């Protein structure tokens, strides 16, 4: 196990310089349009110092105070998903050559060395699911290319939002040993306790030549992890695995559909949702075309349109598909539920539908 070292806030630029020297383009969450979103960063001073998020169902607000911390917030609307599974990208192009023959060309992105700073434990858990989906079995070249050059600087959560429930999914607020980070940070008031989780992380830390973290610092980090665990208000039902699969005809589906806009915002911010559609985008002259892959959602009609028949016409059916896939059917596919407890679908639902509350209502009455 790697040793814990300490990087003071005052010296935090050294980490950025080390990433720069190692050839990484760094990105970190920064305030933009009222939320923390991943943006390019070179200076530690551009970290979201003093930023806090207030999240409730259908509500997200940033505020700033003189807190000495850069990660005193839970999360923004994006996890790692948009970084790896592009919202819209061409898979291939086709053009007619001089002889009138069709020539196909793949358009895979080039691997790039990118460092993402401020990755949350729930994001790492979601990444592991996406890795299994996109790289296990049939390998997705586009995802693989973006994944290849990625360095993950994770930060354990000290300030979970009211919408967070990663404790109940087992994915946070502290990252697990083998969860795939290169560096893992615990932020204290005066700096970061850091440890490496990979060879690349070890190398970076070696270059920084930092002092070992003191027992007091380690205790503080543990203490705030415990506090973050205690502070979570939401959780999934304990009897979900046995009770939920039997609830396909529960009256709650119709009730939630009265509120659900079927807008798909939940699926777009969900770090584990991977549904997409593909379409052709031909040039007007008909001589060439791009084949696009775009994020789709089980809340769109196209998602269940088969041979002239719409399988899931109603909002109730679409919401049921989403929740049941995540919480009831996913274990068969991936060996775990498809929810990492990040709470994004709760905050970013325009009408504030709460997946954890819905799951409780559905599981009431137990094993029907």
């Amino acid at each position, binding site marked *: 196990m790697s040793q814990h070292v300490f990087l003071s806030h005052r010296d935090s630029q050294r980490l950025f310089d080390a990433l720069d020297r190692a050839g990484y383009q760094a990105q970190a969450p920064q305030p*933009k*349009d*009222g*939320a923390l*979103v991943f943006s390019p960063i070179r200076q530690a001073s551009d970290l979201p110092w003093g930023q806090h998020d207030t999240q409730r169902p*259908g*509500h*997200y*607000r940033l505020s700033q105070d003189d807190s000495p911390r850069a990660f005193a917030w839970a999360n923004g*609307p*994006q996890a790692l998903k*948009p970084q790896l599974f592009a*919202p*819209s990208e061409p898979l291939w192009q086709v053009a007619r050559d001089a002889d009138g023959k069709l020539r196909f060309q793949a358009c895979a992105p080039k691997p790039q060395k990118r460092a993402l700073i401020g990755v949350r434990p729930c994001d790492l858990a979601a990444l592991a699911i996406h890795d299994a989906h996109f790289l296990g079995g049939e390998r997705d070249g586009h995802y693989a290319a973006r994944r290849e050059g990625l360095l993950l600087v994770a930060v354990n959560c000290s300030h979970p939002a009211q919408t967070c429930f990663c404790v109940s999914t087992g994915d946070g607020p502290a990252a697990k040993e083998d969860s795939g980070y290169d560096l893992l940070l615990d932020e204290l008031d005066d700096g970061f306790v850091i440890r490496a989780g990979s060879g690349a992380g070890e190398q970076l830390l070696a270059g920084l030549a930092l002092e070992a973290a003191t027992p007091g610092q380690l205790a503080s980090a543990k203490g705030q992890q415990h506090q973050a665990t205690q502070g979570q208000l939401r959780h999934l039902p304990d009897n979900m695995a046995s009770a939920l699969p039997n609830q396909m005809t529960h009256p709650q589906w119709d009730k939630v*559909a*009265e*509120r*659900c*806009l*079927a*807008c*798909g*915002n939940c699926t*777009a*911010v969900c770090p584990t949702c991977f549904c997409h559609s593909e*379409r052709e985008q*031909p*040039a*007007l*002259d*008909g001589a060439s075309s791009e084949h696009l892959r*775009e*994020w*789709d*959602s089980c809340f*769109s*009609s*196209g998602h269940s349109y088969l041979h002239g028949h719409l399988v899931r*016409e*109603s*909002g109730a059916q*679409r919401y049921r598909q989403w929740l049941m896939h995540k919480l009831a059917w996913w274990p068969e596919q991936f060996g775990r539920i498809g929810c990492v407890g990040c709470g994004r679908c709760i*905050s*970013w*639902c*325009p*009408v504030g539908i709460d997946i954890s509350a819905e799951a409780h209502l559905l599981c009431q009455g137990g094993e029907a």
Partner: protein
Amino acid sequence: MKMKPTVAVHKFSSCDGCQLAFLNAGEALVTLAGLVDIVHFAEAGYLDEEAKVDIAFIEGSVSTPHELERIKTIRENSAMVITIGACATSGGLQALRNMHDKDQWVEGVYALPEYIELLEDSRPISEFVKVDLELWGCPINTRQVVAAVRALLFGVLPVDEHDKVCQECKRQQHVCVMVAKDEPCMGPVTRTGCGAICPSVGRDCYACYGPAELPNTGAMARRLEGLGLTSEAIAQRFLFINNHAEAFREEAIKWQEQGQ
């Protein structure tokens, strides 16, 4: 050599803005002119209103007795009729008069109202003749026209873009203006196609592309109420551009009645 398909662009009651999707197309307009024969397009200088064509694009609503006659003739003369924009597909802004005393409005607007001859309502083209494809939007954009023409030239039906604006907005990774700023954004019930223009500049969508597929207007309206909008303001959010579209009109009427 195979004959090029013939195209007409007809104008009814409208602001001419949707025709600009052709005229502002830039290079695509040159390409288009090589692919089809434009035989009638008054704003571009081609005049042959009675021509028989393969594709007739219709801008504007049917608001006058003369327009009612014209649309019937155009339908007879056209293999395919495609409406462009909110006026032609849902009656447009001018359909607001359908819910009011139109004579009073005409007297208020025109100096010599006796010269204005109107049907009782401003109505979309599809209420009078069969429409083969509707392109929604106020105004529509070049991308929509190009996609429709290209699909027809390939001999396939153009894709009906009826998903919600939110889907495109999220693909572009805009921060939700409703959740982060309490803006009364209509994206969750509004048809995509615009490219999520308003949220991209931090504004709320005002539903100019009309109702999306499966629009939960009731839930949308209650959310607007939660944001502090009055019954009248909620009705206006639905009525503004596509007031004659059934899903929006019905929801608006509920809130208007509640406000009285």
